[in-house]
């Protein structure tokens, strides 16, 4: 607990200078109304990971907490959120460092489960869901066929198998683009070694290839870069700091709309809206910061600090072209939002 207190103190001390700086940077006229830019006090582990989700997933009590603040900027300690999290998931009930991607997946899935559970309790009622839309649940249908807002936002569909596109993990190569990584991800996958495919015809495990095509594009495309790799010679995982460029605007190549009645838009144009950045040299420790686009500004959330940054500074998070440097600040999870969703 001493860490938290230290940070708390720290935050009190630097709050004044930093906060007014952000307001100065943006300018009082341009400061978006009803917007609160709050850093989160670092509670050892959890808070580091939750900064990125804040703009998208409105966890009630946390959001309310911030929305009721009078100040435009500042920081809060997400104690209640952490307490709830610990109760819900024992893996997080400790002070160990956690992976942002695992955390995100847990959070998204868990919120989804809660929604579905609530829905089950109140069948045949019109429910106001968390995102504020009315969802009519038809009691005759199995509950889980009705998509929740979590599905609406994050779920995409791949054709070779229906697979949630939540935070799809893509392997990274040196000096590549996220586009190329995605292409490799969807092009051809060879199933071999331990991963052999059981063929229905010959009833044996065989090497096989499968291709994936995106059939339905999600509103928010969350891309997880596989920046950690197992190295046999070291018998441990290392961080992959490869330079992987990601554009501010993205569109997928391998979209194919097979069924015309599918209400999907294969031409979806995505805008980068947030990046979770991993800082550090190894996979087992480090620090997360996040950059978020809000009302045309790019903001950098680093624990309780919030700073305005220039869009051109994003290239600092692409990665490194050589292995000489040990530590790096690299984009780890990218959030792209569909343009038609934002307007």
């Amino acid at each position, binding site marked *: 607990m001493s860490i938290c207190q230290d940070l708390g103190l720290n935050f009190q001390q630097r709050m004044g200078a930093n906060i007014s700086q952000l307001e100065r940077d943006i300018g009082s006229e341009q400061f978006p109304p009803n917007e609160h830019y709050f850093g989160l006090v670092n509670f050892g582990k959890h808070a580091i990971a939750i900064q990125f989700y804040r703009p998208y997933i409105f966890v009630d009590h946390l959001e309310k907490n911030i929305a009721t603040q009078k100040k435009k900027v500042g920081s809060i300690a997400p104690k209640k959120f952490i307490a709830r999290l610990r109760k819900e998931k024992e893996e997080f009930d400790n002070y160990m460092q956690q992976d942002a991607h695992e955390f995100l997946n847990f959070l998204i899935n868990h919120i989804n489960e809660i929604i579905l559970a609530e829905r089950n309790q109140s069948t045949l009622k019109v429910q106001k869901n968390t995102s504020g839309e009315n969802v009519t649940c038809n009691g005759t249908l199995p509950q889980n066929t009705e998509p929740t807002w979590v599905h609406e936002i994050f779920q995409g569909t791949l054709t070779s198998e229906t697979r949630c596109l939540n935070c799809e993990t893509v392997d990274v190569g040196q000096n590549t683009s996220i*586009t190329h990584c995605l292409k490799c991800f969807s092009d051809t996958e060879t199933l071999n070694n331990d991963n052999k495919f059981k063929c229905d015809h010959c009833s044996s495990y065989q090497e096989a290839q499968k291709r994936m095509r995106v059939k339905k594009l999600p509103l928010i495309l969350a891309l997880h870069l596989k920046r950690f790799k197992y190295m046999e010679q070291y018998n441990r995982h290392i961080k992959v700091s490869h330079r992987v460029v990601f554009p501010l605007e993205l569109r997928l190549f391998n979209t194919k709309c097979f069924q015309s009645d599918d209400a999907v838009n294969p031409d979806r144009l995505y805008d980068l809206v947030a990046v979770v950045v991993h800082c550090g040299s190894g996979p087992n420790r480090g620090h997360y910061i996040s950059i978020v686009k809000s009302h045309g500004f790019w903001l950098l959330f680093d624990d309780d600090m919030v700073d305005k940054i220039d869009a051109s500074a994003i*290239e600092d998070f692409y990665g490194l072209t050589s292995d000489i440097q040990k530590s790096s600040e690299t984009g780890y999870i990218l959030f792209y939002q569909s343009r038609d969703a934002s307007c």
Partner: protein
Amino acid sequence: MAVQPDSGGKDDVKTQFATREGTYRLMTLSEYSRPNRVGYTSGAGSSHVRVSLVSLPPGSGGGAPGSDGHGSDDRICFNHGKELYVYVYRGIKKAADLSKPVDKKMYKGTNPTCHDFNTVTMTPDSVSLVIGFSTGQIQLIDPIKKELSKLYNEERLIDKTRVTCIKWVPGSSNLFIAAHASGQLYVYNEELTCGTTAPHYQIFKQGDGYSIHTCRTKSTRNPLYRWVIGAEGSCINEFAFSPCGANLAVVSQDGFLRVFHYDTMELIGRARSYFGGFLCVCWSPDGKYVVVGGEDDLVTVWSFSELRVVARGQGHRSWVSVVAFDPYVVSFSDPESEESVEDDRQKPEGVQCYRLGSVSQDTQLCLWDLTEDVLKPPMRARASTHLSPNSQSFSPNGVPGMKLPKGGKTSKIGHKHAELSQTAAGEASGAKQTKSKANNVATLNISVGKAKEESSGTLGVNSLTQRLAGFSFGDRRSEHRRNFSLSSKPVEQKAPAASAVALRGRGAGAGAGAGAGAGDACDPLKLIGTPACPRFDECPVLEPLVCKKIAHERLTALLFRGEYLVTACADGCVNTWARPARAPSAERAPRRLDRSERADRADRPDRADRPDRPDRADRTDRTDRVDRIDLVD
């Protein structure tokens, strides 16, 4: 999860690669870098190393200052981090001598980002080099004589953002253009001052997605013009003048290619990236195609005459940083079509092939063959014209004896017109679009004529008569050709084949034309599926002929010269690759080149915009050209 071979970082860096014309080899002794590479820091930030090459006029005694006595008239300039170097460039014949740079500059608080030699004013012992900086300033120096040093935008009153591209106006001794990350492009006259106050602008011309301003002052000052292009604040990444010098292609971070007529400042056409910003742009040596590369990892080919994206090249693994045509590798499958360069779009059997090169942040070089069978409009109508293989003249409808140097451009225009009219008439949904295109064409034609007068006047470069002659000639010719007149309504004209269109159609042609309405035309989402941005399966996808990893760092420069090609990467190394010793299939290439060059030369004042191109040929010295051709052969 997907298994991706992590090849990007592990592939060996290639020192040679084979094409159908032979093997290109890295000349390890011709590597240019800073004089002392000790203490070299890798990954020194975002260093966009660019290369300018110039061939000075041969000196009388050969002992010109800055020359090293080895008889090379070539000078190379490149920037890296805070430094800028000018060396005598000795090509592939002699090893680089890094101990004696012609000039070296080290800047404090700013980095040089781009530079260009003036090929109009250069002499054997002097050359003007204009340099743009990361903090917005511009410097003019003479790296050989070292007497000259002027600063523009010194107080950053004109623009505070990075200079992204700087070039001399083709054929001009004193005008240069600087593009900035702010999305603005300024025309400077090196003889004028920049004033002591920030300029007040007044609008001079406005169009769809751009506006042009002049300074509101009593005395003329810099900048002469300010072009504001694209979405607000979206960085202009590069611009390039067409080989004839009349048209200006600009690519921006907003994902648009915009092609302007430079003198009339009219927007001629545009293309939109698959997604993300366009980073680089170049013109085909004959000015028919504009090729762009960008953050979509693609190489996109846009037809100037049809105002549409005609092909995309997929092969890079990351953003494409430079695209450049290789004017020395041009081949034709049909020898009989030899005399019809400017007309081969009418002649499907005369297949022309362009060679294109591209380099990327993926550290790879790609070479592409753009063949006319890919580039031509699908289901193209056959022209009723015939070409006699033996005659120098092209006589479509009884206009006899057209000599190429005069006809090069004009026949292109006439041709363009024909092409568009075909399109127009074929376009089922018709009249409105057609009209916009037709207007467009008219503009084009008028402006060409005008441009000639204007540019001849202001730039004062060669053969006004020739160009005017060319203009009127073209005019006449167009009238003759299938009775198409330049300005009247092409809707009424009968196109030879109504089938021309199917692929073009989608009823959205307006997006590509300059006549498209404001608003919608700039919305990328609405452009998807239009000729300005076809869907991926609506447009031919090319594969690279060669795709090789040739560096450890991301590549930032690519130039083609007669004997070699030059690449540079972000760690500040400039490499030279020798062309195949003897090109087996390039036997006819020199002649082709000769012809296209000639056609080309007829209508362009100079080639100051591309120092990589055969500058010397432009000085219309026959022996020079022969010289170069021999080297290719």
